[in-house]
């Protein structure tokens, strides 16, 4: 299924040329060759002067970390970044490969190219369409890595992996993966897709989320215990993860200084061996063991960002999405409660007016001038109140729906959370084990040399 071109992911630069894009348009949707790097090579190619910012990235290196699950009925993969030079700007696109076995899809495999802001569009649409689904977060515009050059290899790779995680999570989501926008995103060619984006999407949203509604946190009357507990849990979880990241980062920094110290330590043994012919062997062995151990530790230190630092930070972003979604639900609750309050108020008003009416009718014909306004009001209320009742019912329905939807998605998320965190912790621990194994083997080599030389030790029992 893979083209030969996918064996090497050399970043080529494509200059979009009007003629070429016309040619491309004529191709069918599913003509993969028009979208893969191979054909762009044939069509036009101008070497970018900054080609050096990318080097050959073997696809296998990237693939192995993408955790592609071959068995599901919808499987999406993001890889193969490419630089594009437009007349207006330079940007990167990523190749999205989809394998699908669903009726709604006319084909089994799709390959498209998308750029970052198109992913952002997709996410926005998903949030609009499914406000109470937990839509996975996108990597930030200016990332976690901070000062890295936007076109540097490392930045692009990290972004690509995060986009891949994003797409995979959506693909595995029972509701989000059926979303129309998502389908178009992964299947359409460039022109169809652009068309779709421009098309004004009618808001299917029942309640428009504005900034004002968001600030209603403290104003809902009846706190929903279940969701309150969830909020508290999320806060604690995020707190603990941040702590863990801070501690790890601190330890990593200390290890970094430690390694520098060690690099000045092991040569001393070698230097000493120069004046000690009879001790030379053991001194050399010790020096070499320290050197190997130091090298292994160095490797562990440099893997920190990818193994611990960034994964934890990304997951915290995911937690933030859950928090926000739970918070949105409160808005619904607030709207419902407000409408209920209004209804109660109006009913009370009506009751009061009726009571006044009764009194005045019992009292006689004094308040003749009151009666018309009273009747007017009652009439108005007679119309208004049923409207309110309908509104309240609708809001209540919405709230119940939201609650249900959120509840089940949270349950889904809990499982994903467990899997994700378990993986992060295991990766972290495995790196430690890797380091210690190398250290043990380095020192075992020295110890076995000792038995060869039959050197007895002062303290053997311990």
């Amino acid at each position, binding site marked *: 299924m893979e083209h030969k071109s996918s064996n090497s992911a050399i970043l080529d630069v494509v200059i979009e040329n009007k003629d070429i894009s016309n040619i491309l348009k004529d191709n069918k949707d599913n003509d993969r060759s028009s979208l893969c790097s191979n054909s762009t090579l044939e069509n036009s190619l101008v070497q970018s002067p900054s080609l050096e910012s990318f080097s050959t990235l073997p696809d296998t290196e990237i693939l192995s970390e993408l955790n592609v699950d071959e068995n599901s009925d919808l499987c999406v993969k993001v890889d193969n970044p490419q630089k594009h030079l437009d007349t207006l700007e330079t940007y990167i696109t990523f190749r999205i490969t989809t394998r699908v076995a669903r009726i709604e899809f006319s084909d089994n495999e799709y390959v498209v190219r998308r750029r970052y802001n198109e992913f952002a569009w997709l996410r926005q649409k998903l949030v609009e369409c499914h406000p109470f689904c937990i839509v996975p977060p996108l990597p930030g515009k200016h990332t976690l890595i901070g000062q890295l050059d936007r076109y540097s290899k490392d930045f692009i790779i990290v972004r690509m992996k995060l986009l891949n995680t994003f797409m995979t999570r959506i693909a595995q989501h029972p509701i989000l993966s059926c979303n129309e926008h998502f389908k178009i995103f992964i299947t359409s060619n460039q022109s169809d897709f652009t068309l779709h984006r421009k098309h004004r999407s009618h808001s299917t949203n029942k309640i428009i989320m504005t900034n004002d509604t968001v600030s209603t946190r403290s104003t809902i009357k009846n706190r929903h215990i279940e969701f309150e507990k969830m909020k508290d849990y999320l806060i*604690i979880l995020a707190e*603990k993860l941040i702590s863990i990241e801070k*501690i790890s980062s601190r330890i990593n920094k200390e290890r970094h200084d430690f390694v520098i110290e060690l690099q000045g330590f092991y040569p*001393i043994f070698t230097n000493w061996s120069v004046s000690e012919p009879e*001790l030379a062997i053991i001194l050399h062995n010790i020096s070499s063991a*320290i050197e190997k151990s130091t090298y292994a530790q160095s490797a562990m230190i440099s893997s920190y960002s990818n193994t611990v630092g960034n994964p934890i930070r990304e997951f915290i972003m995911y937690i933030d999405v859950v928090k926000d979604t739970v918070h949105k639900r409160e808005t619904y609750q607030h709207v419902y409660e407000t409408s209920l309050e209004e209804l109660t108020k109006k009913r009370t008003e009506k009751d009061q007016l009726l009571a006044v009416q009764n009194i005045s009718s019992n009292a006689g014909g004094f308040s003749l001038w009151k009666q018309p306004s009273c009747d007017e009001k009652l009439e108005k209320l007679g119309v208004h109140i049923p409207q309110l009742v309908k509104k309240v019912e609708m809001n209540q329905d919405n709230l119940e729906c939201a609650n249900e939807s959120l509840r089940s998605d949270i349950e889904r998320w809990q499982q994903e959370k467990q899997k994700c965190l*378990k993986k992060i912790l295991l990766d972290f*621990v495995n790196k430690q*084990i890797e380091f210690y194994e190398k250290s043990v083997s380095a020192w075992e080599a020295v110890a076995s040399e000792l038995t060869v030389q039959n*050197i007895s030790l002062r303290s053997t029992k311990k």
Partner: protein
Amino acid sequence: MAESSTKLRTNLANEDSLLRHIDISVSESEKRTNGTLNLRDYYTVYLIEMKVTDPEFYDKLANLTTVWRRYTEFEQLHNYLQITYPYIVTPPLPEKRVMYGWQKVSNDTFDPDFIDRRRAGLETFLLRVASHSVLSWDKHFMQFLRQEDAWREAYKSNGYLQVVENKLKGLGVAVRLRKSDHRFQDIKNYSNSLQSNLNNLLKVRSRVAERQYTIHKLHANYGRVFSEWSAVEKEMGDGLQKMGHYLDSLASSIDAALEDEELLADQLKEYLFFAGALQNVCKHQEMLQLQLEDAEGSVASKNLEKSKAQQGKLSLMSRLFGAVDTDEVRELKVNLLDQQIQDGAETVTNTRSELSDFCTKALNDVERFQAQKVLDLQETLAAYAVLQLKTAKKGLQTWMQIRECLQSIP
């Protein structure tokens, strides 16, 4: 440490020395004061126990003697041995002040850990002296081990304090030789490089130890966080809780390892000070050689004077004014010079034989020292490697246990 000193005793009991017949241990320490409560007047004393192990080694005094000695008295003994046997590579004392201390190794000489390590070092010192074929038979040394007060009296009455001071001062002077003995030049060069290598090693090692300590202790912070986290988790709770405990144990495991490493560092320090002892031997040789060269030079100049006197020409004045000694005066002068030359020649012969005697004995002891050094340092270095292996294995084991905890999470 008990096992280590047993091994030391085995390593040392090769020659015919006191150690074949007795055993020495420095078993306890105590804090004493001069009477006032001033902190400066506190000092520590160490208990030296001597036991006669050879039934045939009969002595009027008891089979088991105990004396209390403070560090300064050990210093006095050490200096006495050094100046009395300048051709011997004198075993060194443990450090007077803490060298290359770090967070866990305080600079305070009253710190109980320091006192314990010093106690062990003093025992090693006594064992080394007691195992030396020459040093161990010194009467003064024997008295040091057995007669607490009598030794102090004898030391004072012999005025050793002054003698030692003078002699040690003499060693401090730099010496320029006409033709240095290349054998001792080699020894001096070797001792310089041993000293600089061990200094570097000890300095960096203590920095490395400090970093390792810090890193391990930081892991204790994890323990707390994981424990708190496990409290809010259902399925993950168990695994996280256990992981927290293991991380705590990782933090505390480093203490024992670094304590052991400190003992090995002490063994290296001993050889650092041994380098100094080697240098002293060389300095003494240079001093003797200088004496010889001076004596020879003195004889040569006297001979020159004699030949001049024989020719009657002596002083500048006489040359200026042409005065010439009378025969009588000339003869007197020549006879005097002859006597001086004879004396001088005797001095030269004596000095030469003293130097040659010194050189033979010194080279002999240096050879013994080198052989002992190889044995000792091989053991120390081997122990270091084994300790590192043990520490690494422990770490690996703990992380593997943590991995199991995590894998048990559904």
